[in-house]
């Protein structure tokens, strides 16, 4: 795997150098998928004495844009769109699937944004901390997802726009084994899947 990454990095570097020679101006090749340009590759390529040029971050990717941007203003790339953080995740108490007050506030804001962008479809991902058994957590994540889905629907979001999945404890956001990690992992993560 690291070997494969190294080769990809090297190819990227060679490609970029070749481009630079012909045009004298480093250019980003849009064909290269973003996840390929990771720190691993730059170090392995740098070790072989080659310069690697990374894709620049998309403009507007960092920071949360104000509400009211039209659909056409949204980034076309779904990954970038999700990284922009238009929709906020909601968090849960230990072993609970009930919505807390802060979760209701977040979901109200999410509802407003979803209403302004009626073409956006989302997936609600249920997550749990690592305590309890794997199967129980799958079921608990499922309950959390539906707590969020039912609330969004009650606020007027079309249920057809809301996909659901429970990951239980299988995809933790924080990998620690204490409350600070656990509290991060008890959440429903909202992912934009279509625009």
């Amino acid at each position, binding site marked *: *795997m690291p070997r494969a990454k190294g080769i990809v990095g090297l190819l990227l570097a060679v490609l970029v150098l070749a481009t630079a020679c012909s045009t004298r101006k480093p250019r980003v090749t849009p064909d290269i998928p973003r996840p390929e340009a990771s720190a691993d590759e730059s170090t392995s390529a740098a070790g072989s004495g080659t310069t690697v040029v990374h894709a620049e971050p998309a403009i507007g990717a960092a920071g949360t844009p104000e509400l009211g941007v039209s659909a056409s203003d949204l980034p076309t790339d779904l990954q970038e769109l999700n990284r922009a953080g238009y929709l906020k995740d909601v968090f849960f108490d230990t072993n609970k*699937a009930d919505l807390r007050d802060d979760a209701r506030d977040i979901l109200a804001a999410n509802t407003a944004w979803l209403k302004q962008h009626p073409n956006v479809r989302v997936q609600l991902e249920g997550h749990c901390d690592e305590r*309890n*058994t*794997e*199967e*129980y957590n*799958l*079921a*608990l*994540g*499922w*309950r959390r*997802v*539906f*707590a969020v*889905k*039912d609330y969004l629907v009650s606020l007027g979001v079309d249920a057809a726009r809301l996909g*659901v*999945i*429970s*990951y*239980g404890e*299988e*995809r933790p956001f924080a990998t620690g084994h204490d409350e600070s990690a656990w509290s991060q992992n008890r959440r429903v993560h909202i992912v934009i899947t279509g625009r």
Partner: protein
Amino acid sequence: MRHLGTFSVALVLVASTATAQEEIYLKVTSPGLQRIVIGLAPFASRLGVDPVAASQFLNTLRADLDQTVVMGLLPEENARLVEAAPGNPGLTRQRWRAVGAQLLLEGSFSGAGNQLVVEAQLWELTSGEIAYSRRFQSSTSLAPTMAHTLANELVRLLTGKPGPFLSRIAFISDRSGAKELWLMRWDGSDPQQLTTHRSIALSPAWSPDGQRLAFTSFLRGQPQLFILRPTQGSFKPLSTLPGVNTSASFSPDGSQVAFAAGDGGSTYIWVVSSEGGTPVQLTTTRGISTQPAWSPNGRQIVFTSTVGGSPQLYAIDAEGTNLRRLTFQDTFADEASWAPDGVRLAYTTQVDGRFQIATLDLRTNQRTVIDGPGNNESPCWSPDGTMLAFVSTRTGRKQIFITDPVGRPRQITSEGNNTQPSWVALVQ
């Protein structure tokens, strides 16, 4: 009374070197641990026998014989004291008995090329009679399997039930980078990766005949239930209900599978034919119902439900009637596993904030917590009901351990995180 002579002598006292050896021996035979001590005589080997296969056979056999509850291998230091008496096998056997062996396994290797022939006799040393005699023949590559087969038969001779030596444990491991389905021998040897989906695999469950393995996979996005035939390498979906399709449990005749799946925000117990078809909803209580475990007589299903608030074990008849609660002393009870006797359950409980394995005797309602370091969960009985496999964090990451009825735990995995053991007598 008249003595021929009375005189006194002094004997030079020498430092004893035998003490440590005696202690080990006495421990093995001390009351409470009535293991039958078996000696393994050196096997004669004919010319032409593959020495690698022969030593594989002996190493496997030695390891097996020392890992049962009913038998204990004679300690090596005792075995070393035995001097063979050339031309006098009877005397040699008595010498084995003199160092503590109650049974003696004698044997020989023959065969050439890629064939290995093992002839084995088990001697009952008190009576001096042959208790078992058998000839095995196979290809040299199957030497370990031959040894496991012999060890199984020796256990069956002593207990009436075959030993665990050909049994295997399916489990989930992330050692390859993603949670995949794996298979290993009961002692952790010979691990094999069964899936390479690079997704999330969960909840393996064997059909009792060892032909099929049900499991959950996120392979297609949503978690779905699949059935795999490990010897054929083929698998097909069994349930694609919405939400969690997890924690499968085969009926004892293998015809049906109980599992947990969602509907709305709740998770219910469902039953589906193991050949596929439309699942039937067995429970209707809202909330979380999960982890069904089909009883060995097929009449009831134990599962976890939050209907009373915290997760507890409940039983329901396989027809979906007669719902009743089983656990009352736990703040948390999940992952029930039926012992083959149909009387005891092992499950995961919570004590002082840590997960622990407990057993529940359904005749007496006697609950026993097996207290261990770290978090301990996912218990699974061995097919003969003499051992438990479980997952523990006592050595750091999640690892699979097995423990015998005396309570001695043994770690059988070490690479990555290893979880959710499912134990079967024989993979077919």
